[in-house]
C-alpha cells in the first residue's frame, strides 16, 4: 500500500487543473501539444532517411543514430523556444533515460535473434543423442557435453546446498558474535570471486591431492562451481529464514519443542518454497559457467559418465571449443556452437522461470 503511494508520488507530474491549463496556455507558460514528441520523432527519421537517400548511404544503424540525434536536438530547441529552459531540460532528461532503456534492449534483442536464427539450424534429435566421437565436420552432437553439464552441476548442487543451508541457519538462528559477522563478510567477498579464480583454486587443490595427471576431472569442476554457488545459496536461504516470523518460533518453544526440532519442523518448512526457489536460481547462475570448467573439467569428444576419472566435457566448454578451434569447413562447428548457446539459454530461462513459479505457487499464504 505504502509502496504504491510512493510509486504514485514518484510518477507524479505537477498536473495542471483545468483552470491552470486555461491560464497557462495563454498567459504563464505555454505547453507543447501532447503529440509533439511523436511528431518530431517521425519527422526526424524522415529527414534522416532523406539525408541518406541524397548522400547515397544506407544502413539501419546509421539511420537510427542520425534520426535519434536529430530528434533530441530538435525536441530540445522547440521545447526551449515554446516552454522555456527548465521544462526543456526536463524533457531532454526524459528523452535520454528513455533512450538509455531502448539502447539496452538492442543487444538483448540482437542476441536472442541471432541465437534463435543460427541455433535452430542444428536443433535436432542428433544433437541431443550423439557425441562428437569420430565426427570430422558435419553431424555429431553435444550429448556428451549435456550429460557432463548435468553431472557436474548435480554434484556441485549436492555439495553446495547442505553447506549453504546450514550456514544460513547458523547466521539466522545461532550466530550473533564475531564469527557470524566474519562469515557474512566472507560470503559477500565470495560472491565477488572471479569464476576463473575459482577454477584455479579447485585445480590447485586436486593437483595437491591426486597429482597433475589426474587433476582434470568432472569432480574438480564441481568443486570449482561450489565456490561460486555456495554464496548464492547462503544469501537467498538467509533472506528466506529471517522472513519467518518470530512468533512461530516462540509458539514452538512454548510447547517445549527443542531448538533444532523447531528449526527442522517449523522454520524450514515455512521458508521451504523460498529456499528451493533460491537454489534453483543459484543452479541457473552456475550452469552456464565456462571459465572454471575449461580449466578443471577439460574437453573430450566422447561420453565420460565418471566424474572421478578422466576429463569431462560440459556444454559451455563445448560451445567455446567449437567456436575457437573449428575444423574445416568451419560452418558445421559454428552451427553446433550456436545450438549449444541456444540450449544453454533455454536451460537458464527454464530454471529461472521454475524458481519464480515455485516461490509464487508454494509460498505460505500467511502474508499478514
Amino acid at each position, binding site marked *: 500500500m505504502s509502496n504504491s503511494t510512493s510509486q504514485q508520488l514518484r510518477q507524479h507530474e505537477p498536473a495542471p487543473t483545468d483552470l491552470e491549463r486555461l491560464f497557462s496556455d495563454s498567459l504563464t507558460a505555454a505547453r507543447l501539444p501532447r503529440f509533439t514528441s511523436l511528431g518530431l520523432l517521425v519527422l526526424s527519421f524522415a529527414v534522416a532517411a532523406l539525408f541518406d537517400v541524397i548522400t547515397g548511404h544506407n*544502413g539501419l544503424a546509421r539511420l537510427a543514430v542520425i534520426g535519434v540525434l536529430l530528434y533530441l536536438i530538435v525536441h530540445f530547441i522547440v521545447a526551449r523556444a515554446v516552454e522555456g529552459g527548465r521544462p526543456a531540460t526536463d524533457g531532454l532528461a526524459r528523452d535520454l533515460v528513455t533512450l538509455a532503456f531502448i539502447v539496452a534492449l538492442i543487444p538483448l534483442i540482437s542476441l536472442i535473434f541471432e541465437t534463435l536464427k543460427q541455433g535452430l539450424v542444428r536443433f535436432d534429435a542428433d544433437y541431443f543423442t550423439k557425441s562428437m566421437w569420430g565426427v570430422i565436420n558435419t553431424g555429431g552432437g553435444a550429448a556428451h557435453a549435456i550429460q557432463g553439464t548435468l553431472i557436474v552441476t548435480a554434484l556441485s548442487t549436492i555439495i553446495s546446498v547442505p553447506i549453504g543451508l546450514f550456514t544460513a541457519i547458523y547466521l539466522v538462528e545461532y550466530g550473533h558474535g564475531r564469527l557470524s559477522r566474519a562469515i557474512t563478510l566472507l560470503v559477500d567477498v565470495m560472491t565477488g570471486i572471479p569464476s576463473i579464480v575459482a577454477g584455479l583454486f579447485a585445480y590447485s587443490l586436486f593437483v595437491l591431492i591426486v597429482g597433475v595427471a589426474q587433476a582434470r576431472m568432472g569432480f574438480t569442476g564441481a568443486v570449482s562451481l561450489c565456490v561460486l554457488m555456495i554464496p548464492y545459496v547462503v544469501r537467498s536461504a538467509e533472506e528466506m529464514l529471517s522472513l519467518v516470523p518470530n512468533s512461530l518460533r516462540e509458539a514452538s518453544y512454548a510447547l517445549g519443542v527443542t531448538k*533444532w526440532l523447531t528449526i527442522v519442523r517449523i522454520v524450514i518448512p515455512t521458508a521451504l518454497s523460498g529456499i528451493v526457489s533460491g537454489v534453483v536460481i543459484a543452479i541457473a547462475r552456475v550452469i552456464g559457467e565456462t571459465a572454471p570448467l575449461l580449466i578443471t573439467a577439460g574437453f573430450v569428444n566422447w561420453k565420460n559418465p565418471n566424474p572421478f576419472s578422466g576429463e569431462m566435457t560440459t556444454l559451455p566448454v563445448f*560451445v567455446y571449443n567449437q567456436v575457437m578451434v573449428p575444423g574445416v569447413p568451419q560452418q558445421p562447428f559454428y552451427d553446433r556452437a550456436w545450438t549449444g548457446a541456444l540450449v544453454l539459454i533455454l536451460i537458464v530461462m527454464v530454471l529461472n522461470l521454475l524458481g519464480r513459479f515455485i516461490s509464487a505457487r508454494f509460498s505460505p499464504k500467511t502474508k499478514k
Partner: protein
Amino acid sequence: MSSQTAQPAMTDESLSPSSKSHGDSVFKGLSTGSGVLIVVILAAVAIFLIVQAAPALTHQDFPLGDGSNGGILSYVGPYLFGTLYSAVLALVLAVPIGVGIALFIALYAPRRFASGLGYVIDLLAAVPSVVYGLWGLQTLSLILQPVHRWLGDYLGFIPLFGGRVSGTGRSMLTAVVVLAVMVLPIITSMCREVFLQVPDRQIEASYALGATRWEMIRQVVFPYSQSGIISASMLALGRALGETMAVAMVLSAARVVNFSIITSTSSGTIASNIALSFPEATGLTRNLLIATGLVLFVITFVVNFISRWVVARRADFSGAN
C-alpha cells in the same frame, strides 16, 4: 556461548529423554561447522593459490615474447593494464546507461510496466558469458566493424582511436561493449532499488518548491543515492575485472600495452590469458598462470571490499532510519 540456547534446551531436558538435546547440540555443531567451513574454503582458495603460485613468484626467467626474459611482475604487467583498461572503459560506457535505465524504470515508466521492464533488463544477467562471447565474436564484431572504420577516419587524432583499424572488429572496442552489456544489469538492478528508497517527503518537498521532475532527481534522488550508485559501479567493476570468456573469445589479444581501442592487437586481460593459455600449459608456465590468477584475486578482493565498505558507511550515516 550457550546463553542464547539455554532456555529451550533446559525446558527440553526436564520434559523428555536426553536424546533430543543431543540432537540439539549435533544440529548446532552442523550449522556452526558449515559457517566455519566457508571461512576455511575462502582461506583455502588463498592458500592453494599461493602454494601453487609460489614457484613462479621467485623465478626470474620467463620468456616475455620479445626475446628478453623477466620475472612475474614484468610478465603480468601488460595483462594487468589490459584488465584495468577494459574494465574501466566498460564502466564509462555502462554506468551512465545503467543509471539512466534505473531512472527510467523507477521514476519514468508507467507503474504497471515497471517490474516487467526490470525483468527484461535482468534477462541480460541470465545469459551465460560464453554466449556473450559467441555473440560478440560472430555478430557484434561484424556490426561494429564500420564503426571502427568511422572512428579511425574521423577521430584518429585521439590516441584512443589511433593506429591501424582492425579489419575484423575483434578489438578492445567490441570487448568493452560486450563487457558493458554484461555489467549493465548489475548497475541497473542495484540503482533501481536505491532510487525506490528515496524518502517520499523529500520528493514531495522538492515538487512543492516547484521543481520539474529532472530538477527533483538532481536535488533529491542523486544526493540521496550517491553512495548506492558508487557501490553498484564498484560491484560492476569487480565483475568486469574478472570476466573471462567474453574477452577471451572477442579479443585478438597480445601481451602489449596499447591505448588504442580499435586496432587488431589489443592488450589481453589476466583472466582471458589464463583461459586461453592454461589448458595447454605445463610445468612452471602453469604456476605462472596461477600466480597471475592470484593477482586478479587480490584486485577483485580489494574492489569488492571497497564497495561493501561504501555501503556499510552509508548504512551508518543514513538519515533514513
